[in-house]
């Protein structure tokens, strides 16, 4: 077992001491980077180097193409697994049948040739084990995951194999799932955050599959049992798939388990389904979804990002943390200084194709305009001025030292290595990741912000009372919708 030592950045106490002791008295001379905060610098911070060693998984490839990965950890009597099937995600749903892959995945655990839906539920829950099959509306892969105490894992895996290889798609369960899904689609439309994200994805990705957030009543009507059977037959194949285990199990045991339980999973011989880049979004506009009775305005502001393997990913990770991470500028400015909001943050996704970057918050209706102005000003400041060194170092250290916390959770560590497999990252990627983050300079962070957060790219979506129409009109050509997306 190869192990690598990663030195977590040392922090020198000096960097925490404000240059001017008068700052401790909350003087007015604070640089903008500490807005909403006063640093007295008296708390004892360790500047010892905490050496963190990341365990590495062991891997093997089976005859049918399936990759097996095991992150062995015997601290607790628990084993979890995740199976990732590229090509079976909502990304590949026919446009008229958005939701097909997700519903197929859900239906897989609704019955097999030998077990009814109730029998599966009862077997799982009696063991207090869980088994989920899912596929995101816009993701490129389907995922099956599960966990159980060691003593029950064999039985869990037997069930999982049955669900994977032999689902029966019972017609009566399909009717029930449709009814539940319809109720869920109705409920979803009462959530301002859903309405905002739905419109934002549409605006940023147009007709590209990345714009998909959920099935619609129309696509639900178009999906048939036959379509699901066919989807499962042609898409749930092992050729490019990974099964990853974490916890109280060895590679040898995992391999034996996989070969004995899903050895019959036949290779299809198909190439890995392709992934296309979305076309760049059109010129920025302001989009308003009028939600009657809304006492807040919920914003999403953003644009397309990059692929996971783009060199810009690392500098944007740092810039994004400075702007919209925990105790980042948006939080300190919009919440701690101005009291406009309870929560604000920025997030970005990156996968085989360009993902999205967005900042989002909810503010009371009457401060919609100043809050939006401040939000956009904070984004802009990241482009126009380099982040001061101390602020940059603090956020870089936050990312790097946070690695120690993930050592608590084998599942979380496994997540890193699943990413490595997904994007063909170098074997030592996570060992070197702290150094990559630490190496980001203020210039690089600013360059990334300039490239991705340029005002000429940022789309603005707001969900709220129609009375904010004038505010939105100041932000560019406006398009208006109701809560049904019409």
């Amino acid at each position, binding site marked *: 077992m190869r192990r690598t030592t990663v030195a*977590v950045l040392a*922090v020198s106490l000096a960097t925490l001491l404000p240059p001017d002791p008068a700052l401790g008295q909350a003087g007015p001379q604070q640089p903008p980077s500490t807005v909403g905060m*006063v*640093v*007295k610098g008296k*708390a004892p*911070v*360790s500047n*010892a*180097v905490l*050496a963190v060693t990341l*365990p590495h998984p*062991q891997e093997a490839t089976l005859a049918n193409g399936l990759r097996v990965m095991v992150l*062995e950890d015997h*601290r*607790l*009597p*628990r*084993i979890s697994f995740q199976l990732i099937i590229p090509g079976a995600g909502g990304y590949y749903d026919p446009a008229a049948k958005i939701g097909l892959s997700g519903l197929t995945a859900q239906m897989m655990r609704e019955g097999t040739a030998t077990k009814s839906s*109730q029998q599966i*539920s009862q077997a*799982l*829950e*009696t063991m*207090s084990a869980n088994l989920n099959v899912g596929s995101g509306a816009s993701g490129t892969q389907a995922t099956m995951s599960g966990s159980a*105490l*060691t*003593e029950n894992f*064999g039985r869990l895996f037997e069930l999982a194999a049955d669900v994977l290889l032999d689902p029966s798609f019972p017609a009566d369960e399909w009717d029930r799932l449709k009814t539940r899904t319809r*109720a869920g689609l109705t*409920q979803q439309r*009462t*959530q301002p955050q859903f309405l905002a994200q739905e419109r934002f994805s549409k605006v940023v990705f147009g007709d590209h599959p990345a714009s998909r957030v959920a099935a619609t009543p129309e696509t639900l009507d178009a999906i048939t049992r036959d379509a699901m059977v066919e989807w499962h037959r042609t898409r749930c194949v092992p050729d490019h798939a990974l099964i990853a285990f974490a916890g109280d*199990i*060895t590679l040898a*045991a995992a391999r*034996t*388990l996989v070969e004995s339980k899903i050895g019959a999973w036949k290779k299809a011989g198909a190439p890995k389904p392709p992934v296309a880049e979305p076309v760049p979004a059109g010129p920025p506009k302001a989009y308003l979804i*009028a939600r*009657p*009775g809304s*006492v807040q305005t919920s914003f999403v502001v953003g644009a397309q990002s990059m692929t996971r393997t783009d060199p810009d990913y690392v500098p944007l990770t740092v810039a994004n943390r400075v702007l919209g991470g*925990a*105790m980042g500028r948006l939080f*300190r400015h919009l919440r*701690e200084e101005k*009291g406009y909001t*309870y929560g604000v943050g920025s997030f970005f996704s990156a996968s085989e194709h360009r993902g999205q970057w967005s900042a989002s918050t909810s503010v009371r209706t009457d401060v919609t305009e100043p809050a939006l102005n401040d939000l956009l000003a904070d984004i802009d400041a990241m482009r126009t001025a380099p982040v001061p060194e101390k602020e940059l170092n603090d*956020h870089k*250290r*936050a990312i790097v030292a*946070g*690695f*120690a*916390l993930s*050592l*608590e*959770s084998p599942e979380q560590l496994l997540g890193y290595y699943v990413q490595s497999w997904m994007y063909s990252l170098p074997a030592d990627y996570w060992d070197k990741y702290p150094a990559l983050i630490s190496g980001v300079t203020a210039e690089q962070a600013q360059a990334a912000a300039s490239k991705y957060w340029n005002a000429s790219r940022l789309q603005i979506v707001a969900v709220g009372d*129609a009375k904010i129409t004038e505010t939105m009109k100041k932000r560019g050509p406006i398009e*208006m919708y109701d809560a049904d997306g019409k």
Partner: protein
Amino acid sequence: MLRSVKRLVATGPLLLVTALSVAVVFGMAKAAAQTAIKEIKFSDTKLKNGLRVIISEDHAAPVFAIAVNYNVGSRDERKGRTGFAHLFEHMMFKGSENVGPGEHPYLIFSNGGSMNGTTNKDRTLYFEILPANQLDLGLYLEADRMRSLEITGPNLDNQRQAVQEERRLGVDNQPYGKTFEVRDELAYENFAYEHSVIGSMADLSAATVDDVASFFKTYYAPNNAVLSIVGDVDTKATLEKVRRYFESIPSQPAPAVVDMTEPVQTEERRTTLEDSLARLTRLDMVYKIPPSSSPDADALQVLGTVLSNGRSSRFYEAIVRQKELSPSVNAFSGESRGPGLFTVVGIVTPGKAVADLEAAIDAEIERVKTGPIEPWEMEKARNNARSQLVNNLGSALGRAITLGQDALFYDQPGRLNTTAARIAKVTPEDVQRVARQYLVKTGRTVVITVPKAAPPAKGGL
């Protein structure tokens, strides 16, 4: 000082399959023998100033967690100052003698940790999780604010706004947001539990700096708190540090004991409210139950499992799957130091009647009272308790919170070591008995939330 972390991964010849793995591979017909789950060890010390300190070493990962449970919640609030315990929780991040406003969270996050605070009816909890080399930092930050919170008007105004925004986000702008408040106001007569944790907008606006100062003095005393530390620490050295940082904080007279007496309910209470943000009708039913310290609490927990835990539960099978009256029905008995509520919540499927959903729930409750409870249902409850214990073992933070809270609520910090055994002792007859005793119409409150047609939105192009 350079530290290295213990090896996390057992190495060895890969083809040597251990006994455990044999069970995994070949023990398909039935479960392998139950793995013994190790008992959680901890030290329990009272400092001279009354602060209770619980330390539990675990060197599995280079991480530790601190939890500070203060013995104050919204139940301690007086009329006209609802929402105060939670508003105060926000003030605890706004600076103390040696730590500037916002510096506490900034130092935690920028050193790789995470932190938060949370308030409920029974306690206020602060916690942080940090890399192992930052023990002094975590203890210093918690001690400084326990000793010397700095309370200013601008900080209060700013956090008042953040809390009012939190209320809008979680209550006023959410479908069914007001349902909880209406439900508790109707179910409880005693003010302590009758009002919501988030409080009313008017009361939040009325809070003054003097209120904050006196609240701090009364409730944020070391003798009114439990400090728990779990993870990659040395007990003896940690206790020395705790004494150094905390022991000189003066104790205060014990706060008044809250009268939790709740008059006996003799008839069903029922109301309907309209909600312009909701699109589907929702049914909430709560039944009065005793506090979590009651000998019946375990049987009530198993009852919740039988009725609504997962898709093998009775509510799911009968009401969601077969009758399709609801996309989901939940039932649970939350933790409560005072008189508790057994809660049943269901959304009504579009096109179905709320009366039918209520009748179906009632029928399932009757079936528990009269019919048998299957052995697998009891096994499910036992395995749930075991799984929860293992999950707790995997999280320094979860364990720190549980140890501290159990010390505060039950004076039994090690209670989690007995949970699985206690649940295993519950019999099917116990479950039937508590259902018959507590799930009665005369002890329940029913709230029906119906969508209110909103006026059409103005605007459009």
